[in-house]
């Protein structure tokens, strides 16, 4: 027991500080991916309900591809594929080498996956808002942009929040996959520690406990946001 505590402790004898940096990397990657996924997903949901058939089709192709591919494969396609393309581009043009780090690859891959799923959440939330809301806004003389920001969005966030909360949990868990291409997140640090100390059960168990803490904190935060979006409703 004492031995385990030493191994998990901070300082030169334990792996506590390495695991802590892993937690920071995991959280940073998730938070950095979130705006990409949300923004792209929102734009995709707009494209899916546009009258323009070509735009709708393009958005549907995007969703079909990135919802159907395993996240791990998407990650490898971005990490190896985009890097190979960038390399052949730089040799063809003579520009200096640019390569995606594992962090950026993870951000891109998890971002497009998040966008593919969140676009569906946004789409069904859009459909749940009665048409009269938009017409009412127009009747008050608001422009299209103002109707969107002042009338539609506040209701949209409220309806989409449970779905988006689930996607955030998935994102948080999917960041563990990026450890496979070498990102020093929680799981990677645990793997290194397990190999060196020969205590795999202790360290993978700790990693799982850390992820559990993160998901519990997230669900508390999402619950708080949920209450905040519903502050205008009658208290029950």
């Amino acid at each position: 027991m004492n031995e385990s505590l030493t191994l998990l402790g901070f300082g030169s004898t334990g792996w506590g500080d390495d695991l802590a940096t892993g937690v920071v990397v995991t959280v940073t990657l998730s938070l950095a991916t979130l705006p990409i996924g949300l923004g792209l997903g929102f734009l995709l949901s707009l494209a899916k309900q546009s009258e323009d058939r070509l735009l709708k089709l393009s958005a549907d192709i995007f969703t079909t591809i990135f919802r159907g591919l395993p996240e791990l494969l998407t990650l490898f396609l971005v990490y190896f594929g985009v890097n190979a393309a960038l390399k052949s581009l730089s040799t063809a043009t003579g520009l200096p080498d640019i390569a995606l780090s594992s962090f950026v690859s993870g951000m891109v891959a998890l971002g497009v996956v998040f966008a593919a799923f969140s676009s569906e959440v946004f789409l069904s939330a859009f459909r749940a808002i009665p048409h009269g809301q938009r017409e009412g806004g127009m009747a008050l003389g608001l422009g299209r942009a103002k109707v969107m920001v002042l009338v539609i969005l506040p209701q949209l966030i409220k309806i989409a929040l449970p779905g988006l909360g689930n996607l955030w949990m998935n994102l948080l868990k999917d960041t563990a996959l990026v450890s496979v291409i070498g990102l020093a997140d929680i799981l990677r640090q645990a793997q290194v520690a397990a190999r060196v100390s020969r205590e795999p059960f202790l360290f993978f168990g700790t990693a799982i406990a850390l992820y559990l803490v993160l998901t519990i904190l997230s669900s508390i935060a999402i619950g708080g946001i949920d209450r905040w979006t519903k502050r205008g409703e009658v208290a029950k």
Partner: protein
Amino acid sequence: MSGNNPALAAPAAPREKLKPAGFVAIGLWIAVAAAFAFYFVRAFDVTLIERFGWSYLHGLWVTVSLVGVSFVLGAIVSLPVALGRMASNPIAQGLAFAFVYFFRGTPLIAQIFLFYYGFGQFRGFFETIGLWWFFREAWYCGLFSLALNTAAYQAEILRGAIESVPKGQWEGGRSLGLSRQVIFFKVVMPQAMIVALRPYANEIILMIKASAIVAIITVYDLFGETRQAYSRTYDFQTYVWAALLYLALVEALRHATNWAERRLTRHLKR
């Protein structure tokens, strides 16, 4: 001027709006498709198919059988868990909740590592209870983690579906003098299963995607074979093949579900 009055003119047939954004977007996809076609024609190598074609098919079979077996095992485990979640006994409730929260709240890859590498630490213990043959094999460990993971998700699907059946169905069954078991299996479950069909199909799709992770612990599923082919050739098209196979599998399942749902609910159509 009066001839141009829009109020008097016959309503024009609603024309489809084609805006530049749509052309740009679809143009982008056409460009991507063309680039891939160009790349494939240039990089296409018959010897690669001769070398790896069978191993890809074998990998596909491993993926499908792994998902199939773990889905069925998960379904069996999920029944007591779902009943525990709905039970009034606080101990059963707590245990079921902890099980579901543990498997849904942590990454599958971490669970697989815990079972494969972590349990290896207790080799002596597993040898004495005669289970070492199970936890020694990567395939069994992948199966074990996938089955428990999906059991947690399926328990929630099952619970939601059973709770969606109106209480009157239970009461109606009881007034006919049916026993609880008969009501559960003959009255409630068939109705719950129609509700659960789509979530179950989604769960299978999620499992197919998640099962690629077992390649990391050296199971040669579709993704494992792909990684091996790539490490031998450094040819990127090996990954594109895998992507096409996974997409075909998932899309086939999605369309099959749509068809099955239409067929199973045809008596509910009005």
